[in-house]
């Protein structure tokens, strides 16, 4: 369908068909809004432009959250994953991160299939070149052929395409991905609407031909023997669906570092040709060699891009040196001596919107109805993009439906909430990636608790059908009941108990609850399950025996961490009662005695939604926040007192 053939209006138009755009469009259509996904090329939907992987530390939690909120990334990753691995598996549940290698082509086609099959959702191949704003509100999107699609809300999810500029050595071309044209006009349209933009840079490593690589010189990196799925919906499906494969590990050498150092003047990063700011946590190999000069070697993961492709991804080797230098460098690495480069590494510079101009719903503060999601907001990563897409798409649908309701996730509620709060409160000067350290209440945000945390929220707004939510939450409730029965069952060190436990290799000298026993490090919950069931009432025992392996592991984790989690919640209670205090829209900072003009200006520009947000705005002193808090509380007291 061409844009010019479209006659009817849409509720929501999503610009861009990447990971943010797909989740945005799927969320908006799930809320029953007539949704249009505009992409310059419908054949490129849900492309994995960089690494062939989904998840990781903190990112894996984000994927679970997307899943718990009715998003699709987790299910598609499960269906197209070719290696699953829990990172930090030896650590506590809060910091484990699920990650998978994906078959890139299958990931894209599966997501495209889901988008194509969704109710209320249509896909059109057209370029968005302008935004139509009337009386300060967004009312339509203008496409390249001059037609205007009218809509109640639009989500800009342009990824790296806004004035995208690709660098390989001193060669440059305007493109958003390797051979896909950049979007020039949309940037101009945003500037004309008064948006402040910034320039960012990211990079991707070379791809090499699998047949040209010597695996004997590299170490094998296997997935977990029992793969863990991202999505609860994978329970009903064959998982893993695809053949599982290995990755390989090799290292750079001093010789390679020398080559890189010599070639630095040819790198646009160092010659000053790239002005955009790159990510510190995902540095190019040029950066690593310069900044960590004393490191003897850097790790390179060699990852397949799919089951039916010859392409390998050299994770850790992103750079922007000229192609011939790249060949020398790649071939200096053990196992890659005869590697054939199929696509050189490149850097891409692109426009981003300064996210401080957005509200926590990802709607523009100044142009109601216009939303932004994904890399265009200054983030990097598929998972970050998808999470924003889901939140933006949901809110866009609510706005288009004329509903007052807003869909906002708190910092203590979700990694996605942490990310969006960081973006709109602090802004970001480099591509933003989710890190577990960004979440101050990380212990509460483990991947396992995503459904308990978020599914009720999703059901309340209509992202998940009530029946599906009930089923999911019933599983959570069953776990709670088993936990409660473990807490309530006391063991006395009598003869029979002691004998039974000794047979399991557990000494018992004191009275202890079943929960207390499970908290002991030497106790393996899987091994005591049958015995423990014998101590419970028949219905309780039945529930215990019904727990699937993953939930049984959660029983152990949650009982073990109960104490720290309780304390974490107490802190949230203590601090957050003040933190989460809502600042009313249009609050008159200017009339507040004692507040400095500078603080007033900052607060008026950011319009923080809560006191916690106000306290995180750079340049607003703690004392100013105290004054606002004092005022809010005294006002509350007066109001309450009548």
């Amino acid at each position, binding site marked *: 369908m061409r844009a010019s053939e479209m006659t009817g209006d849409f509720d929501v138009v999503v610009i861009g068909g990447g990971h943010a755009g797909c989740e945005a469009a799927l969320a908006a259509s799930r809320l029953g809004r007539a949704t249009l996904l505009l992409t310059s090329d419908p054949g490129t939907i849900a492309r994995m432009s960089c690494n062939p992987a989904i998840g990781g530390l903190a990112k894996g939690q984000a994927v679970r959250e997307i899943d718990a909120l009715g998003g699709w990334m987790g299910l598609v990753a499960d269906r197209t994953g070719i290696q699953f691995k829990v990172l930090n598996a030896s650590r506590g549940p809060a910091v484990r991160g699920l990650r998978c290698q994906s078959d890139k082509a299958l990931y894209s086609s599966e997501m495209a299939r889901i988008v194509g099959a969704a109710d209320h959702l249509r896909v059109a191949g057209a370029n968005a070149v302008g935004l139509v704003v009337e009386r300060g509100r967004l009312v339509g999107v203008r496409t390249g052929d001059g037609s205007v699609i009218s809509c109640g809300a639009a989500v800009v999810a342009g990824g790296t395409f806004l004035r995208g500029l690709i660098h390989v050595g001193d060669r440059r071309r305007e493109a958003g991905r390797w051979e896909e044209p950049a979007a020039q006009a949309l940037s101009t349209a945003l500037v004309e609407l008064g948006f402040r933009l910034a320039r960012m840079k990211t990079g991707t490593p070379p791809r090499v031909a699998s047949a040209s690589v010597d695996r004997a010189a590299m170490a094998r990196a296997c997935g977990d023997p029992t793969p863990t799925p991202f999505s609860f919906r994978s329970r009903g499906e064959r998982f893993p669906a695809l053949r599982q494969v290995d990755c390989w590990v090799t290292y750079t050498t001093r010789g390679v570092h020398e080559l890189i150092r010599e070639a630095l003047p040819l790198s646009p990063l160092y010659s000053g040709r790239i002005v955009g700011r790159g990510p510190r946590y995902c540095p190019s190999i040029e950066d690593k060699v310069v900044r960590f000069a004393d490191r003897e070697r850097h790790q390179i993961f060699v990852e397949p891009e799919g089951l039916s492709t010859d392409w390998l991804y050299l994770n850790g080797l992103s750079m922007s040196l000229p192609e011939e230098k790249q060949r020398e460098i790649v071939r200096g690495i053990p196992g890659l001596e005869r590697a054939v480069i199929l696509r050189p590494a490149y850097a891409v510079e692109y426009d981003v919107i300064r996210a401080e101009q957005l509200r926590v719903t990802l709607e523009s503060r100044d142009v109601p109805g216009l939303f932004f999601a994904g890399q265009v907001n200054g983030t990097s990563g598929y998972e970050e993009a998808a999470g924003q897409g889901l939140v933006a798409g949901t809110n866009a649908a609510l706005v288009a439906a004329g509903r007052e309701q807003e869909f906002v996730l708190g910092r203590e509620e979700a990694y996605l909430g942490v990310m969006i709060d960081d973006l709109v409160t602090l802004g970001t000067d480099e591509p933003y990636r989710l890190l577990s350290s960004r979440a*101050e209440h990380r212990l509460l945000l483990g991947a396992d608790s995503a459904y308990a945390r978020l599914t009720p929220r999703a059901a309340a707004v209509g992202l998940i059908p009530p029946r599906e939510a009930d089923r999911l939450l019933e599983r959570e409730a069953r776990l709670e009941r088993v936990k409660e029965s473990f807490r309530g069952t006391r063991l006395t060190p009598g003869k029979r108990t002691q004998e039974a436990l000794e047979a399991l290799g557990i000494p018992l000298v004191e009275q202890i609850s079943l929960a207390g026993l499970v908290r002991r490090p030497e106790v393996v919950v899987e091994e005591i399950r049958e015995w423990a069931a014998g101590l419970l009432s028949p219905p309780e025992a039945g529930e215990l025996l019904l727990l699937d392996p993953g939930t049984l592991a959660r029983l152990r984790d949650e009982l073990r961490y109960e104490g*720290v989690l309780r304390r974490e919640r107490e802190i949230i209670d203590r*601090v957050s009662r003040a933190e989460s205090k809502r600042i009313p829209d249009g609050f008159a900072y*200017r*009339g507040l005695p004692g507040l*400095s003009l500078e*603080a007033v200006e900052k607060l008026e520009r950011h319009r923080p939604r809560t006191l916690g947000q106000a306290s995180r705005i750079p340049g607003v002193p703690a*004392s*100013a926040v105290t004054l606002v808090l004092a*005022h809010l509380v005294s006002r509350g007291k007066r109001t309450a007192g009548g």
Partner: protein
Amino acid sequence: MGRLVPDAAGLGDVIVAPATPPGTSALAVVRFSGPHGTTLPVVRRLAPDLPDGLLPREARLTEVVDARGALLDRAILLFFEGPRSSTGEDVVEIHCHGSPAVVRAVIDAAVAAGARPARKGEFTRRALGNGKLDLVEAEGVALLCSSESRARAGRAIGMASGLLSRQVGEIRSAVLDLLAETEAALDFPDDVPIAAPERRTEEILGLLSRLLAGRLVQTGERIPTVAIVGRPNAGKSSLFNALLGADRAIVTAEPGTTRDVIGETAEIRGEALRLYDTAGIRPARSEAERLGVEAAERAAESADLVLEVIDGAVDGGGPEPEGPRADRGSRRIVVESKRDLWGDRRPAREGALAVSVVSGDGLGDLRDEIERALSGVETEGEVALLERHRRALLETDLAVREAAGRSEPELAAADLRRALTALGEITGETATEELLDRIFAGFCLGK
């Protein structure tokens, strides 16, 4: 129900108030504060002969007039340009003659010229809002203003000048470093080894213990009490007068002169204390004396320090006081009086301090002893702590120790964040309801 919108006059107006206490004095200071560029135009209406290019921090002698141009006073005027001022705004001080009438006239003239009388705590509030003070410093200012003694003022200035805030900042920064190492190893397990945190932990605990050694004070602190007790005519009242530096108690050679408890505030080695002279303890010979003796016993019982005076002029210091030893548990210094009468012999009682209020011998030593007994352990550069500071520091200490004992880095990280939250509560960076209560109690905010 109260107004829902704060008064629009809150920002942008020039406030004025006397900065010195009411009453007659050599000088009185009237202070103005207003946003940049607003204070001087108001002040010029009071001081029309001020030059155009008034330099900040330059003292100028000027005439102060009222709205009709009548001369009120010749005064020194000081201008502090914001943000380099006490409130962070443009501040002007008029140092006028310390008559209540002059001060009142200057304030009236200021109000006629467009200034508004400041509400209670408003200067401090503006300083807070402009980030010139943090919460601790504001608390210090309040404490400083209510300090009754030099030593206490000295400790309050540690709070008011930001010394405590700086030390808390130092601890905070050390905790942040430790947290950063812990977090980095969690987020980048391939690149960052788990740090060995022992050295940093010790550094933090060291900083904390130094701060925790600080003295606990309260606004409206109960000053320490010292009761002088002893047998009749042992020389209690003379000692009382000597320590007070004034003849407050009536001294006679007749035993039983002091019938009631007399209390006065004295300053010893810079420390304010409440000194009580009491009736001599002996079997009472009258109803009045019996009541006096009971009062003496009560005073001794509740005193932080008891000075027991024994009569050096009587052989062996005389018998031990009769009656109940009501002062059990209190710290006690034994003073053997009237040294001028008994010369160089050794004190009759082991450990007694020989003192003569006539020659002044031994009074210096006694003052030192009193100071030591009341202060406990002295530390160099000590800073006063309010109870809420101490609690937050103890919470920090506990959290850092717990972090050090964790085998799971994510739990250690949570402990360290808890420590940061607690430290933030001291300076107001972490807003909690408890903090609010404190602020409402101390600064009359938002009322």
